[in-house]
């Protein structure tokens, strides 16, 4: 037993944790496709998909079978290599961001001290999936969707970063574990309410969810940047969007709602409960809000959200300086 060192055990345990978290995130993302349809049905006085299996529980398996066996078609006018690259990029960049999120005190993949910046960097890379996919499709609608996506994401990522800086200033660290620990007494949603609201808006915009789904607006652009995708390539864009939802929800919980903290229940339950609440909020937003015109989205971002985050950051800095903490 000379090879069995504590270091090796720790490495294996960390790898096991990473694997479990990866699988959990992908499964939750895939399950959300069905949950979303059920919830949308619920809020529209319908049932939603309830045919496959008891109460529609096997719908997910049916969908997966369908998407796996669909023809994986690459259009002849597409730029082949980039066309293949884009969905992988969309899926991987968001999935990789989960590395920084601490699930419970003992669970989490990496304990990076630049945690938040890592997320912002990967969110920046995620734009390219849409851009490259839209361009490589060789389709007008896809290109238009990609152009919209680039402008929108660029604008919203500016104040996404700024909205988080208030939290960073209060916690004094980019590390998410430190941020959760700093919310022991008071969740950051109260002192950083403006930051929370703007981050929520930016998170919706960056994941292209309704009402900020201009890049893939069905009615105007016939699904925008993934118009030419089918089969599992489309599936990766599709699941990637839901993984993005899970990611943004988990980040909101970690940054503003105390992460795993909460009375009585074990930490993992608190984390799951809070995250599912925000996932539900994402779907509720889709169910209730119409899509604004594209130029209004841009002017809302630059004229309302950016000043709000700047004011929030200035006020936070001033208060921290005066109280001397």
């Amino acid at each position: 037993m000379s090879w069995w060192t504590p270091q090796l055990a720790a490495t294996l345990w960390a790898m096991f944790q990473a694997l479990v978290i990866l699988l959990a995130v992908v499964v939750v993302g895939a399950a959300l496709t069905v949950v979303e349809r059920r919830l949308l049905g619920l809020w529209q006085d319908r049932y939603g998909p309830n045919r496959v299996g008891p109460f529609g529980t096997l719908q997910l398996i049916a969908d997966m079978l369908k998407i796996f066996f669909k023809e994986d078609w690459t259009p002849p006018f597409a730029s082949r290599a980039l066309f293949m690259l884009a969905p992988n990029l969309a899926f991987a960049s968001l999935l990789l961001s989960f590395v920084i999120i601490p699930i419970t005190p003992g669970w989490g993949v990496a304990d990076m001290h630049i945690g938040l910046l890592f997320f912002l960097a990967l969110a920046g890379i995620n734009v390219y999936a849409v851009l490259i996919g839209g361009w490589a499709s060789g389709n007008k609608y896809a290109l238009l969707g990609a152009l919209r996506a680039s402008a929108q994401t660029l604008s919203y990522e500016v104040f996404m970063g700024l909205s988080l800086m208030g939290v960073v200033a209060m916690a004094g660290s980019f590390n998410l574990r430190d941020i959760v620990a700093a919310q022991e007494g008071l969740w950051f949603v109260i002192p950083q309410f403006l930051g929370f609201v703007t981050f929520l808006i930016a998170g919706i915009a960056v994941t292209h969810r309704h009402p900020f789904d201009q890049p893939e607006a069905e009615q105007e652009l016939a699904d925008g940047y993934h118009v030419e995708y089918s089969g599992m390539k489309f599936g990766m864009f599709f699941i990637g969007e839901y993984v993005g939802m899970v990611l943004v929800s988990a980040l909101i919980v970690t940054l503003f709602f105390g992460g795993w903290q909460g009375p009585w229940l074990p930490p993992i339950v608190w984390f799951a409960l809070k995250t599912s609440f925000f996932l539900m909020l994402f779907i509720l937003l889709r169910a209730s809000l119409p899509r604004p015109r594209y130029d209004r989205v841009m002017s809302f971002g630059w004229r309302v959200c950016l000043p709000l985050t700047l004011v929030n950051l200035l006020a936070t800095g001033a208060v921290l300086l005066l109280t001397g903490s």
Partner: protein
Amino acid sequence: MRKNKVLSVLWLIPASWSLLRTMWMVFMHGFRKRETVNYPEEEVYLPPRYRGRIILTRDPDGEERCVACNLCAVACPVDCISLQKGEKDDGRWYPEFFRINFSRCIFCGMCEEACPTSAIQLTPDFEMGEYQRQQLVYEKEDLLINGPGKDHDYHFYKVAGMAIAGKDKGEAQNEEVPEDVRTLLP
């Protein structure tokens, strides 16, 4: 002007309130009654005048009502009805074959309106799915039912002036004996 620009941010307050109110109202829809009818398990209510599967009816005596006048085939906008006139020994007309191609039929009900003898009628039934298209072509045996359908008492030959065996001209209900034109000679 300057003060106005600062104050103009205030539109955010009613706008946010409106968004939140919308979201709350949509959320409360989750607790309402479902509009969906779970079809195969729950039966669908079809009104009596629903225009579904087409039938051929019989008169109260049990004879075919259809007199092969071809009005339904003419009225049909998609030309899905085809029939051939035949004549029985007693002088009654009848369709030798009567064929409706339900893969074309649009269930508009024009044939029912055109029919002078209430023979062709539409019924509240839509469960006609088939795996083979050819089976959607219904022959006379498939269409004919044992009964008068919606029109219980109507009996065409009893009110029509046409002569058939056992009923000469002038013997129908409310029909006067035809004038013998030769008696009118001066």
